[in-house]
């Protein structure tokens, strides 16, 4: 067992080196990535600040500075949890590169997690820089609390794994269809409205909030943000961590089921 984990650690270290080398090679993509990373929270902060300033200084409990804090925190949590695995898998399956990954003695998800974490580590200074500049412009305000900041750490880790597993499972749709674009877009729309991206979830009607509580999207993004900004009671925080644990379990079951069937389909195509 100990030997297995040491091998796994080697794999993660090696993947970090590979990812680092390739990102240094493609510096221009980092610049593009930064432009869109700044632009999205910027536009949301501006639109929602305009709304809240236009309606007496506050909307749904958020002032202009509250929105600034929300979207800066959202950017950081999104950075920590997002994946690009759906695009990768389509390419891998279509071009047949998955065969190489299948030949390795470890589950292919490990090199994907390692690649994801490595890229995040490299872009982290960029994100913090962007966050600092946005903070300088928009003066975010939030009611930070010590216990909430502590609870934020497990919430963020759980959010990362739930989102990673769900998006990895979704990426496996490439085994069955070549039109994953449409599937991904449906997912992105659900994410946009139910995770708290387009607006904090408390701004939505109650039926939509109820749906967001049951579905996984809020637990992958909006929940850690609300927690960090001190907008949740201890009870709500515990409920949220519980829902994250439930979705972690469900997504692990789902991934096993879908992966086994998918690999079988893939093997059939390659034969």
């Amino acid at each position: 067992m100990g030997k297995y984990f040491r091998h796994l650690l080697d794999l993660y270290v090696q993947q970090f080196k590979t990812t680092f080398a390739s990102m240094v090679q493609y510096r221009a993509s980092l610049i593009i990535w930064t432009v869109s990373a700044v632009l999205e929270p910027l536009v949301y902060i501006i639109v929602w600040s305009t709304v809240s300033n236009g309606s007496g200084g506050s909307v749904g409990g958020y002032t202009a500075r509250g929105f600034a804090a929300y979207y800066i925190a959202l950017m950081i949590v999104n950075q920590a949890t997002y994946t690009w695995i759906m695009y990768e898998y389509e390419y891998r399956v279509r071009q047949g590169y998955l065969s190489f990954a299948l030949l390795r003695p470890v589950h292919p998800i490990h090199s994907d997690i390692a690649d994801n974490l490595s890229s995040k580590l490299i872009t982290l200074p960029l994100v913090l820089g962007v966050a600092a500049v946005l903070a300088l412009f928009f003066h975010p305000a939030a009611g930070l609390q010590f216990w909430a900041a502590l609870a934020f750490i497990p919430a963020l880790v759980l959010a990362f794994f739930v989102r990673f597993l769900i998006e990895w499972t979704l990426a496996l749709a490439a085994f069955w269809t070549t039109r994953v674009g449409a599937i991904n877009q449906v997912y992105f729309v659900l994410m946009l409205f139910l995770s708290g991206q387009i607006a904090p979830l408390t701004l939505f009607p109650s039926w939509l909030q109820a749906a967001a509580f049951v579905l996984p999207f809020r637990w992958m993004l909006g929940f850690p943000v609300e927690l960090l900004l001190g907008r949740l009671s201890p009870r709500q925080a515990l409920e949220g961590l519980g829902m994250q644990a439930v979705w972690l379990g469900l997504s692990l079951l789902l991934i096993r089921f879908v992966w086994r069937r998918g690999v079988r389909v893939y093997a059939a195509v390659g034969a």
Partner: protein
Amino acid sequence: MRLLRLFAVFFRVSLLNEAAYRVNFFVQLFQSLLELGTALAGLAVVFSYTSSLGGWTPDEMLALVGVFFLVGGIIALIIQPGMSALIDAVRDGTLDFTLTKPEDAQLLVSIQRVAVWSLIDLLMGLGVLAAALVRLGERIGPGQVLGFLGMLAAGSVIVYSFWLILASLSFWFVRVENLLEIFRSMYEAGRWPISLYPGWLRFALTFVVPVAFATTIPAEALTGRLGAATLLGSVAAALALFLLARLILRLGLRRYSGASA
């Protein structure tokens, strides 16, 4: 007229190519409808808390969404495919095949590739625009419609010239696709009126990357909030940028040495 005839030919060829993959049409239709639904639902969320956004009423914002989809459709239908093809042709040295044809090089590279299904976005934009016009009703006079059409034409020429200049840079530099990628992510900011943004961003979205000319300014012309200075300025900018793009493409073509080199 020769332009229209040639465009019709290229469009027909592209359509024949795509007709083999008819499911693509439905996939694209589905994705476009989803995108439109998302945009409208986003507006609904915002306007459930306010009756005007930075001075724009819901109906005026609807007109802006229409313009955003219409111009986005024009870009996806013809500008982006043609310019990507130009960059590829310069890199691979296959531009020779285009240059040897007895037609203006700029015209050919601009219309050589058409992404036919993007017509859906364009038509959807027109539909939204029509709905907005009906809702705005009597507030739209013939002057406004004329101003709108003029600004839409000017905005399209500006965006086309801007893309052509960026694509022509491929005669000197290798990886210009990245610049086009930046334009694409900045175009997203055009969903909202440029007037909401702080001064430096407004400046960047007008003069560095001409998103404002393509989206906000036509919508402003339609809703009658545009002065004569902006109208004339846009037309002048369109003419100037078009001539500049033509000049840069010519300089680039002079540099181009073909595949055999």
